[in-house]
């Protein structure tokens, strides 16, 4: 039975809940199977085939939630080909799924958690200093547009390329993207530094010194691998003591 656009939309919709039952033992396995239910219903009319597919995907699966649809699309294609031609075999599909999901986990972490999320926060915060509500929307927009693109494009690209997806998504390509995002983040950080200086939050010279001290001390704490809550608590305490002495 051929997959229709509606089936793909249903899978994408379900992929937003892939982390619902995240656990340290099997991570995303249940969420992954949940997301593929529309595909399973379409492709496997016999219960034994469904059980076979589900048992294969019951174990540990670790990938990034925004990149999971690349894995889903590829597996959907390969399972479809297996049903039609008997090739590739199920062991090949399982091995491919494992390798792809692990590499996309690292790529997704780098792209989304380490780059896109802070960049969205930087630009959202910068705008929010002067237009609060607009800044919140900028933050949401800057993160969710790439997220939605990855989820939607991922499923269709994965389905189009199947095994070839691994060649298309090369390490050098993701490295270039990460480098560009690094530059954008640095640009945003530099702009935010000046924006904060001009905002009403830092009015006088004492506050400017406190602001610059906060930057330096936080870098030192992070270099010492101090947990963020502890670093913030020390800073809150220190600023209180200094304020009490000054005022």
């Amino acid at each position, binding site marked *: 039975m051929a997959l229709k656009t509606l089936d793909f939309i249903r899978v994408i919709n379900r992929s937003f809940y892939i982390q619902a039952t995240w656990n340290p033992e099997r991570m995303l396995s249940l969420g992954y199977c949940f997301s593929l239910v529309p595909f399973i219903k379409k492709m496997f009319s016999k219960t034994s085939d469904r059980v076979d597919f589900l048992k294969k995907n019951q174990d540990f699966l670790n990938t990034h939630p925004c990149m999971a649809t690349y894995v889903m699309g590829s597996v959907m294609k390969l399972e479809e080909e297996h049903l039609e031609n008997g090739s590739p075999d199920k062991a090949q599909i399982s091995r491919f799924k494992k390798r792809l999901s692990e590499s996309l986990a690292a790529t997704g972490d780098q792209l989304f958690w380490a780059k896109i999320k802070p960049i969205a926060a930087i630009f959202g915060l910068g705008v929010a200093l002067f237009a609060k509500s607009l800044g919140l929307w900028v933050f949401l927009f800057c993160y969710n547009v790439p997220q939605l693109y990855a989820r939607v494009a991922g499923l269709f690209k994965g389905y189009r390329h199947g095994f070839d997806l691994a060649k298309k998504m090369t390490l050098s390509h993701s490295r270039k993207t990460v480098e560009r995002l690094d530059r954008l*983040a640095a640009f945003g950080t530099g702009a935010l530094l000046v924006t904060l200086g001009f905002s009403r939050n830092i009015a006088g010279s004492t506050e400017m010194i406190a602001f610059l001290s906060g930057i330096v*001390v936080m870098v030192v704490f992070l270099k010492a691998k101090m947990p963020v809550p502890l670093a*913030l*608590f020390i800073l809150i305490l220190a600023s*209180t003591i*200094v*304020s009490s002495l000054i005022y």
Partner: protein
Amino acid sequence: MDVLLFCLIGGIVATDTEAAWQSMASQPLIACSLAGICLGNFGLGFTVGLLLQLPYMVELPVGGAKVSMSNLAAFVAAGLAVKIEQSVQNVDLILLLSLGYGVLLSWATFPFWRLLRQINLLLVRKADDAFDSGNLRKITLMNFLGVVNALFFGIFFSAIFFFLGKYILLSVSSHIPFQLNFSASLLKPVLLGAGLGTMFWLFLKKKTVGFALIGSLLSATAFSMF
């Protein structure tokens, strides 16, 4: 009624953090603003979110990494800031008390993530017979229960620590001498600096210094023109 809505939004914050969507609506800047809107002071809620947003960016929720409950704790801190405003007049002091509580809360409660995930593991094991029988409805139900788990977790977390925090902070604030009312005036610039320091730590390297300088120059030029 507004506190009930606050707790419900706390549930949504917990859900958006991991279980569903990951739309960043659970991030401190947005969640705290929502807390402010809900309890009647958007500006104060926004300020709490502004101060707590950037420092926690360095915590990456990678695999089984231990991360603090920053989103929920910041949300509760914002709610408390708005609630104690009626009793504590000085805004800097309100921020000091609520931020101090929020930061400690984020650190002390990270084992709660383990509890949430253990419940998820129970749901996954309950779904094993669904895998054995090909029962897609049960798989859907078990996954859906994971979302419900996160929602109720967030609601209870927000409720418990909001009321506990209100009791603690109002007790503490009633014992603070008048002279210390101005002891928190440097809090905002220091925490904003801490946030920016986090960004420098993450992104300022030899290859990117030039881009940071360009950003600063362009921003300075734009401000000087306007």
